[in-house]
């Protein structure tokens, strides 16, 4: 089974055979796996999130408007004035 997809079947990775790869490793003392992470955590995250705000904000702005309108309208319809309006007075 499989074979025509990108992947091999169940654990067989498939994909193009990789050749000429040199593997070496830095000593754990030389590695800096958390280099700049505290800075990126604040500035990178805020930059990337704020870049999405124009796309997300439109929808949530409209949604919040509908939510407040519907809540107010519901409360009005339950009030004395709202009942009078519903009865056509």
């Amino acid at each position, binding site marked *: 089974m499989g074979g025509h997809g990108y992947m091999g079947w169940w654990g067989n990775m498939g*994909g193009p055979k990789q050749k000429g790869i040199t593997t070496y490793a830095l000593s754990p003392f030389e590695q800096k796996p958390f280099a700049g992470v505290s800075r990126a955590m604040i500035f990178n995250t805020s930059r990337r999130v704020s870049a999405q705000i124009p796309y997300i904000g439109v929808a949530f702005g*409209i949604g919040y408007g509908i939510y407040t309108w519907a809540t107010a309208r519901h409360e009005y319809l339950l009030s004395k004035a709202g009942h009078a309006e519903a009865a056509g007075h």
Partner: protein
Amino acid sequence: MIRYLHANTASFFFFFVYLHIGKGLYYGSYKAPRVALWSIGVIIFLVMIITGFLAIPWIGKDLVEFIWGGYSVDNATLNRFFSLHYLLPFILAALVVMHFMALHEHGSNNPLGVTGNADRVYMHPYFIFKDMVSWFLFFLVLSLFLFYAPNAMGHADNYIPANPMQTPPSIVPEWYLLPFYAILRSIPDKLGGVVAMIGAILILLAMPVLDTSRIRGSAFRPLMKIAYWLFVVNFLILFWCGGQHVEEPFITLGQWSTGFYFAWFLILVPGIGIIENTLMDISSEK
């Protein structure tokens, strides 16, 4: 505690599944060649909804009356529903295996929407250990709910024992069923409401056809991004309407939201794809 564990884990299961489906919609994971994977996923979602729904005899009762128009629903019906609630998870488990098999045909999608075929790492240990972070976080949050707020995601009305002699004055499904419940009751016709509710789930199956864009995923499609979030917010409104009493303005709002739900699939998604492709063609013409 075991019952609370059952109920809260089901809630989280649905929460994660909604995120998973949302991710699939955003990143175009339904597009060829992963149509089989997506379709099995939609069926899993449908069976999940049915399973979750059967756990609440009060809602089930209402629906049976919707379909059968006033036949008495008694103990036998509740027993039958409970049996299916036990049986369907085994079918779900089999479907999950099929979901995995379909996934392994073509591999996972990624946020860029391009093939990641040339650069792969093994599931174990890389993803196992990465996922374990999420598992532990999940168990932490689940424990918080389980031990400190076990009823936070439920509704008090669902503690009223089922009474075959009385239709409940108001029914509130579990939160994860609310959007589809809102769609169900926004259609005035009984059978039409059921058809719309099931159609709302099955319309996901049409996504591979409805998405006319040449680009997989929404990461590089500004119009689709806006449309996607409109869909999300509309879905949240459906969530909200489904939990309200059947009163104005929630009736009208639910109907408009249902309309938008279907319009998103049938008009917005194909329309935006066509606009994008046309703009692309115009700009690439000499």
